[in-house]
């Protein structure tokens, strides 16, 4: 699975309300800037023609560079202003910030806020720069990526290390399991892993090497408890679950068509479906409140699905499918086989495909809970429209391997997805390692899974105890690598802007979390916190977490006091 930190398509910088307030100023500024740019261009055209006559090439070159720089700067300004003025745009670009986030984005802890350094300022605006060289969709991809990954990239450049970089970022935002690296490293260094055969170095079967597809089929048959052996011909392996999802979206939908997704929902797929396939995700909003129909928080019911579908259809949307994640991300919920059956029947009733992502299926760490894979069902309501995705990123903690598998009973779909094989292919050498890994069920059952579950449980226990001490409500589940926590009480007012500010405050303290907005959560104030990290790091992270909340609390009190005095 690709980077599931799923950071958030959230506009940074000024809030929307601020932007709207200043809109008239922006409009004027825009005019001025446009005019300025025009003038400059003419000026440089003149300059250059004169220089050309004088044959002062070097000088001309310098002027050209200067012009390029200036026009780039001006483009940035215009774009910034435009994006600011249309705050509702999906691809809103980060505004140049006067706040203290610069250091976060660049991992330059030394930089003083409020004293803009010209060089970082330039790159700060990069997403806003309307490139002359990219296509419009290229710019869109660029901007979406910058928005979604800038904090992740900052983390990549400034990772915490216990000796070398104690002030670096700790990442409890990206869903990675770092608890069993020792076991995996040991396993991967065994002699059976290193194989260099001629066939591995040559063009593969683009659906995946037959030996790997056979192994995946066997593995899923066993761990999903399939009633009958699964067929390797129904397996397609690609370099990650996002690739699988992207290819599925391409072949199941035409551009502009849509999938239903219950939210909160893993944001990475939203990124995938938008980027290449141009498929829309229509949220089925779930609520935290317990009511007559909602027997537990964020419960998914068929009524809600029906309602969302009807609404979408009334709006003229062509809904082609339903996307489910089980175990759920970020909730950690597991669907009972009854509920799952109802969702599948709902889909069948409306001729919808069901894409079901079971990437956390082996990360259920409470033995009393039974996970029911969709592949375990004796009779699927609509076999030809049920497509299951699984990968090793989460359950085996090897997101860097780039492996995702599709299992579908529909040969037509499998074959169409295969057409994307050469764009999402996996190295033969890696395919061999994966095959060896999946094959060794003895090691998985006796060594890896018990240890992994134990460590997940311990880490979960540690984090939830802290949360309880802080009296922070959370969704207490026993699967996945995360807890879904409610920080509403730290937001005043309880808005997405405040959620974003709190998120930023965590970043300022070098702690990366994911906020609810990134999961299309309807209610502000929810965060996802990854606990699958080693204890020393986790401890430090929780200390930073507490510090931030304490700071936030003090601010709230101060603010309330101020308000009280004013009244």
């Amino acid at each position, binding site marked *: 699975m690709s980077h599931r930190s799923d950071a958030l398509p959230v506009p940074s910088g000024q809030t929307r309300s601020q932007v709207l307030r200043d809109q008239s100023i922006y409009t004027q500024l825009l005019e001025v800037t446009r005019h300025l740019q025009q003038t400059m261009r003419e000026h440089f055209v003149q300059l250059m023609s004169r220089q050309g006559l004088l044959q002062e090439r070097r000088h001309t070159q310098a002027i050209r560079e200067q012009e390029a720089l200036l026009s780039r700067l001006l483009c940035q300004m215009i774009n910034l202003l435009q994006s600011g003025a249309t705050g509702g745009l999906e691809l809103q670009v980060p505004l140049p910030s006067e706040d203290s986030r610069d250091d976060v984005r660049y991992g330059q802890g030394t930089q003083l806020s409020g004293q803009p350094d010209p060089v970082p300022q330039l790159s700060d605006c990069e997403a806003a720069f309307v490139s002359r*060289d990219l*296509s419009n969709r290229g710019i869109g*991809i660029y901007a979406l990526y910058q928005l979604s990954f800038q904090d992740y990239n900052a983390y990549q450049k400034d990772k915490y290390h216990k000796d070398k970089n104690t002030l670096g970022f700790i990442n409890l935002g990206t869903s990675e399991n770092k608890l069993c690296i020792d076991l995996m*490293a040991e396993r991967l260094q065994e002699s059976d892993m290193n194989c*260099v055969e001629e066939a591995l170095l040559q*063009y593969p079967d683009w659906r995946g090497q037959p030996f790997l597809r056979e192994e995946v089929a066997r593995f899923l048959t066993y761990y999903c408890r399939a009633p009958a052996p699964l067929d390797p011909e129904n397996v397609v392996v690609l370099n990650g679950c996002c690739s699988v999802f992207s290819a599925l979206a391409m072949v199941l939908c035409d551009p502009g068509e849509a999938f239903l997704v219950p939210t909160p929902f893993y944001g990475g797929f939203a990124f995938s479906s938008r*980027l*290449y396939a141009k498929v829309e995700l229509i949220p089925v909003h779930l609520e935290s409140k317990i009511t007559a129909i909602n027997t537990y928080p964020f419960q998914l019911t068929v009524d809600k699905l029906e309602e969302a579908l009807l609404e979408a259809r009334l709006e003229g949307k062509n809904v082609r499918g339903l996307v489910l994640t089980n175990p759920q991300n970020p909730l950690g919920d597991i669907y009972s086989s009854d509920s799952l059956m109802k969702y599948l029947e709902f889909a069948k009733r409306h001729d919808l495909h069901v894409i079901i992502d079971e990437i956390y299926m082996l990360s259920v760490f409470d033995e009393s809970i039974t996970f029911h894979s969709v592949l375990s069902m004796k009779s699927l309501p609509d076999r030809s429209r049920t497509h299951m995705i699984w990968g090793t990123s989460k359950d085996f903690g090897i997101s860097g391997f780039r492996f995702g598998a599709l299992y579908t009973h529909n040969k037509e779909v499998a074959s169409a997805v295969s057409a994307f094989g050469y764009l999402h292919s996996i*190295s033969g050498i890696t395919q061999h390692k994966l095959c060896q890994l999946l094959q060794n069920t003895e090691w998985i059952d006796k060594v890896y899974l018990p240890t992994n579950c134990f460590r997940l449980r311990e880490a979960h226990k540690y984090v939830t105890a802290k949360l309880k001490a802080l009296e922070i409500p959370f969704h207490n589940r026993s699967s996945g690598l995360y807890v879904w926590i409610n920080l509403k009480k730290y937001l005043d007012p309880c808005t997405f802007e405040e959620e974003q500010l709190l998120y930023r405050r965590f970043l300022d303290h070098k702690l990366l979390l994911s906020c609810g907005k990134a999961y299309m959560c309807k209610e502000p104030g929810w965060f996802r916190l990854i606990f699958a990290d080693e204890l020393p790091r986790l401890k430090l992270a929780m200390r930073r977490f507490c510090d931030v909340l304490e700071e936030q609390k003090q601010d709230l009190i101060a603010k309330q006091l101020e308000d009280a005095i004013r009244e």
Partner: protein
Amino acid sequence: MFTLPQKNFRAPTTCLGPTCTQDLDGSHGDDLEGECSRKLDQKLPGVGDPATLSSDTSYLSSRGRMIKWFWDLAEEGYRTYHMDEYDEDKNPSGIINFGTSENKLCFDLLSRRLSQSDMQWLEPSLLQYPDWRGHLFLREEVAKFLTFYCKSPVPLKPENVVVLNGGASLFSALATVLCEAGEAFLIPTPYYGAIIQHVCLYGNVRLAYVYLDSEVTGLDTRPFQLTVEKLEMALREAYSEGVKVKGLILINPQNPLGDVYSPEELQEYLVFAKRHKLHVIVDEVYMLSVFKESVGYRSVLSLERLPDPQRTHVMWATSKDFGMSGLRFATLYTENQDVATAVASLCRYHGLSGLVQYQMAQLLQDHDWINQVYLPENHARLKAAHTYVSEELRALGIPFLSRGAGFFIWVDLRKYLPKGTFEEEMQLWRRFLDNKVLLSFGKAFECKEPGWFRFVFSDQAHRLRLGMQRVRQVLAGKSQVAEDPPSLSDPGAK
């Protein structure tokens, strides 16, 4: 919408994804056209859009049906070959593959190198989500490697490098970020036909062909010569047809011609592109597979000054030069940070394993092994294989082109086509396949003259011998030739 350009639909062989990717380009050209008209006749008389085929029973979207339709036809050919692959012991009467451009001459060297202990290193960060541009350690090695082997006048920079899982992915990503749907790249033909599929599948980008011919006319000095005049003409033509051209794709060393562009020519093409504000994608995937010293290959990165560095994007991969098409490693080098970042934005779909990235870094930094062991041996073996096949062809009196780069010889079999049509080209190709030797035919490279074939020679001697024997048999059976074979200057035969 996923729409294929009309031109390509009429000549669909070039659109066959995996077939072309694997250079089994020819496998199903005729089937596709046949299939197409057959299906259209049966189901949708008079309708020319295959996307609507069998929509009543399909679970797929219309673009999904289109994608699958092309894929199946292609895949079928690929499977035919794989179901009956030649094996010296197990299947001596199986198909010999002269179609796929793979270097099978140096597996022994590679396997030894990849099995050395430095390759087995493992650290946690290799198992976790990477920097999507590629791990920094690898990008640093790539920059050093390209600086050295492309003879760059200045050190190349790691921040200009983006690493992906193969050249196909790179074409796809570049097409997506440089062009809008429906826009086009210019490409001189004959060309490596899989590119249309790479740029089309996700990006829905077209190709505008610069047709070259074998006849040496005017100021040309050699067959299939690319000139700026021809580029200008093709560009004008595309514009007049309402096609917006965003860039030019150059493959150097050229595939299938086995030719290289001189630095002067390269400079002219780049200046042409700059004049029209076109991006240039230079695919140098065969840059170290120039096995004749006299050829004097120059990478675009070796040029003192690029006319338009912000619009010049260079591709390289290990698939060909290191004979590892299954390893899935390619790299982009571009000074344009917007382009690099935009391509990197797509890399979560085109990433490769951290462990493989580590191995690639180890391989690329081992200049001693590359210079002293691998390259000399590889070039010697390529040269020997090339000599064998070209002498066989000469003995048969068959003209061909090949200047000593790449894995292939561009063979002129026009005298075996009495009417000189693409149908006959296809029939001849089938006859080869029936006689268990797989070749690629010219149509798959969008060659405008029927009768050209690409022979891949980078294979073990025993397979080459058997393959050539089968080729001879087919051609002997076809010796009743057209009375007046077209003439061709034949530098390769000199």
